[in-house]
């Protein structure tokens, strides 16, 4: 299988996870969106030399992955893909920040190394939060939640259309790329000259498709306004409990360094 097919299937799989029926899947999407945002803000609000206090935040992705019945290996693979970028920037820290922050034996640990690891943990936590949000909610439901949270309707419609046609067009893109790859015999990229006509053709087909969709919309009485069907999502006690519970936990973990306290019990040094 070609690499492009892989990334395409990967996208589809994440979308399929959202169709599962678990207690977390059933929650009102607003609760999940807001909790995720709170989680990310708490995580990134730690100062750059913080490591231990961030670790307890792993409980959130761990619990949601378990309750949401998400495949651990798959989510991990998705996270691993995004780490190198954050790490690339993070690895500059040890170069610029050589202040000795701690010593293990005779080994000096520079602040830069600590902040680099901190960046790595941030990347893992924030990336897993985003991917898990989609996996337990689904993109259309997230859009709906954002629309209820006052996102303009035009943008909501845009997101839904984009999402709908990603599958159709990436499929077309994959076919084009595959047809080309099968005839280039191992050369990686396409000469930049042919790129214009290849992508240009794809763009023309896309444009014509948009015209046909517009026709199909007009044929069914479209007059500039998309009327959404109200889906019965209900922000009830379960949602309040979910949000309240997690957010208070995040705040507690943000304020108190739990591992530090826990470790203190063993070493006898209290901060």
């Amino acid at each position, binding site marked *: 299988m070609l690499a492009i097919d892989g990334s395409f299937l990967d996208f589809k799989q994440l979308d399929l996870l959202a169709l599962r029926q678990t207690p977390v899947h059933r929650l009102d999407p607003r609760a999940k969106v807001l909790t995720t945002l709170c989680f990310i803000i708490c995580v990134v609000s730690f100062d750059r030399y913080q490591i231990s206090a961030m670790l307890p935040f792993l409980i959130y992705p761990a619990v949601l992955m378990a309750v949401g019945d998400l495949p651990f290996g798959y989510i991990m693979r998705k996270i691993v893909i995004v780490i190198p970028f954050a790490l690339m920037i993070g690895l500059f820290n040890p170069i610029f920040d050589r202040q000795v922050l701690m010593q293990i034996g005779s080994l000096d640990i520079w602040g830069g190394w600590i902040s680099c690891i901190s960046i790595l943990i941030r990347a893992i936590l924030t990336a897993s939060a985003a991917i898990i949000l989609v996996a337990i909610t689904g993109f259309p439901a997230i859009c709906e939640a954002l629309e209820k949270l006052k996102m303009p309707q035009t943008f909501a419609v845009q997101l839904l259309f984009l999402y709908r046609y990603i599958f159709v067009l990436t499929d077309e893109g994959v076919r084009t790329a595959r047809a080309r790859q099968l005839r280039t015999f191992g050369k990686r990229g396409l000469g930049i000259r042919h790129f214009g006509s290849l992508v240009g053709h794809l763009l023309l087909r896309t444009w014509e498709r948009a015209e046909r969709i517009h026709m199909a919309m*007009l044929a069914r009485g479209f007059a500039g306004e998309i009327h959404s069907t109200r889906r019965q999502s209900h922000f009830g006690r379960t949602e309040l409990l979910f949000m309240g519970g997690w957010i208070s936990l995040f705040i507690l973990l943000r304020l108190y360094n739990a591992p530090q306290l826990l470790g203190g019990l063993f070493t006898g040094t209290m901060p």
Partner: protein
Amino acid sequence: MSHHIVHVKNLQHTYPDKTVALRDVSFLIHHGESVGIIGANGAGKSTLLLHLNGYLSATSGEIIIGDDQLSKETLPEIRRTVGMVFQDPEDQLFMPTVYDDVAFGPLNLGLSADETETRVMEALQRVGAVELRDKPPYHLSGGEKKRVAIATVLSMLPEILVLDEPTNGLDPQARRQLIALLQAFHHTRIVTSHDLDMILELCERTIVLHEGKIMADGPTLDIFNNEELLKTCRLEKPFAMQGCPVCSPDKRPLVSQPPLVPPHSSKPHDHEH
């Protein structure tokens, strides 16, 4: 309601680049008729269909649907009356779920949520797709997509169904299912296709277009028996009327000869016995 339900008079269409797509096309379709429109690629079938619900406007000539002449004022009513099912269901199913898609038309007509719900469920029932209601369209099979696309139009309670290449890209079973479904409708039906076997089963009357002109308009069987006509219009008798080249005795020697081309590129046989 007049029983002359679709009346096209001297329709002429010239595209901005000066290509003449339709020349003096006239026909009359009565209530409840099922009419096939056939013709080679570029014969003007799609251009004709796009006129029927006012997406393209005629260079000259007129179109009367029911009692209304097609014009800016009557456009909304005509679009409700004429249900267009496009060739590629991907273009027709643009909403996040099947339900939303089938509800799109009724909601645009200004129906309440409850009325819409009834319409949607009726339409889905009609095409046997109730269990698909919450699915996103890209997780449907080809046949399912086609049936849902038809439901999106049925929910507007059209009197006329216009179908562009309905069997295109369907596997044999999905095709059979779809033909059975279309046969069960009592709407006036206008179907374009290259699948002449389907036209043979579905339409008692056929209009042949060639280079923008109507070459013939009459009972389907008569037209398909006129080999001269089919040949000039770059068409071919439906397989069902050709006799089977594999099993008919006089053709047998052909098969015993070594094939000239690799076996996978030989013509598929569509057995319709």
